[in-house]
C-alpha cells in the first residue's frame, strides 16, 4: 500500500517535471507611463510572461485574436504561461493606444 502510493507520487512528480520543459524562460514585460516595453518581445510556448504594471492605473494585455486577456492591477505583477504559438498583437483594453507585439515560437 505505502510503496504503491510512494510510486504514484513519484510518477506525479515526473509528470509535473515533463509538463514544464527545462528550457522554459521567464520574460518580463513592463507597462510604465502607458508604454509597453519591449514593444516587441519574443518567447516560446511554455515560457512565463511576467507582466509588470508600474502605473497607478489598471492595465490589460489583451490579444487581438483572443488568445489571452490578462488584467494587471496598479503597481502589481501578474504571471501567465504561454500555451499557444503565434505572432500576437495585443493592447490594453482600458487604454487602446498602448500596443505591442509578442512573438511566440512553438
Amino acid at each position, binding site marked *: 500500500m505505502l510503496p504503491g502510493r510512494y510510486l504514484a507520487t513519484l510518477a506525479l512528480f515526473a509528470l509535473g517535471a515533463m509538463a514544464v520543459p527545462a528550457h522554459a524562460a521567464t520574460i518580463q514585460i513592463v507597462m510604465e507611463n502607458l508604454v509597453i516595453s519591449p514593444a516587441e518581445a519574443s518567447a516560446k510556448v511554455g515560457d512565463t510572461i511576467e507582466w509588470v504594471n508600474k502605473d497607478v*492605473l489598471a492595465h490589460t494585455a489583451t490579444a487581438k485574436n483572443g488568445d489571452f486577456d490578462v488584467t494587471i492591477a496598479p503597481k502589481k505583477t501578474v504571471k501567465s504561461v504561454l500555451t499557444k504559438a503565434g505572432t500576437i498583437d495585443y493592447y490594453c483594453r482600458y487604454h*487602446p493606444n498602448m500596443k505591442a507585439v509578442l512573438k511566440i515560437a512553438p
Partner: protein
Amino acid sequence: MFVRLSIAVAALSVLSGAALAQGAKLTDPQIAHIAYTAGVIDINAAKQAEAKGSNKEVKAFAKDMARDHEAVNKQALDLVKKLKVTPEDNDTSKALSKQAADKLAELGKLKGAAYDKAYIDNEVAYHKTVNTALETQLIPSASNPELKSLLQTGLKIFQGHQQHAEHVAASLK
C-alpha cells in the same frame, strides 16, 4: 454628428476663449486647478452613467473612467502637496464646471439607449476637447517639470480614453 461636433467646438472655444481672455500665460496653480476640475467632471459623468446607463459596455466604460480619473487626481493632489502649490480657481475652471453641470442635467433627462449614446458621444467629444487643451495650452504653459510630466502622462491616458470611448460608441451603432 453635427450636434456632437458643435458641442466639441463650443467646449473648445469656452476652454481656450476663457483662458486666452486673461491675456497672460496660465500659472501652475491655475493649470493644476483646471486639470483637477477636468478629472472631477469626468468622474461625475461616470457616476451618473454607472447609475443610469443600460448597456453593459457603457457601464463598464464608466467604471473605468471613474477609476482612472480618481487615480490621476490622487496623483495630482499628491504632487501639488509636494510642490506646496495651492490650486487656484480661474475662469477656465469655472467655465468647464458650468458647462459640465449643464451637460449632466441634459443627460439626466435621457433614458435607456438614448442616454447610453449621448453619454458615450459626449465622452468622445469631452476627451478630445481636454486633450487639445492639454496639448496646446496646459502642457506648454506649465513651468514646473513635474507638473508638466504629470500632464504629459495625463494626455496619454486621456488619448487612450478617447480611443476606448470611440470603440464603445462604434459598438452601439
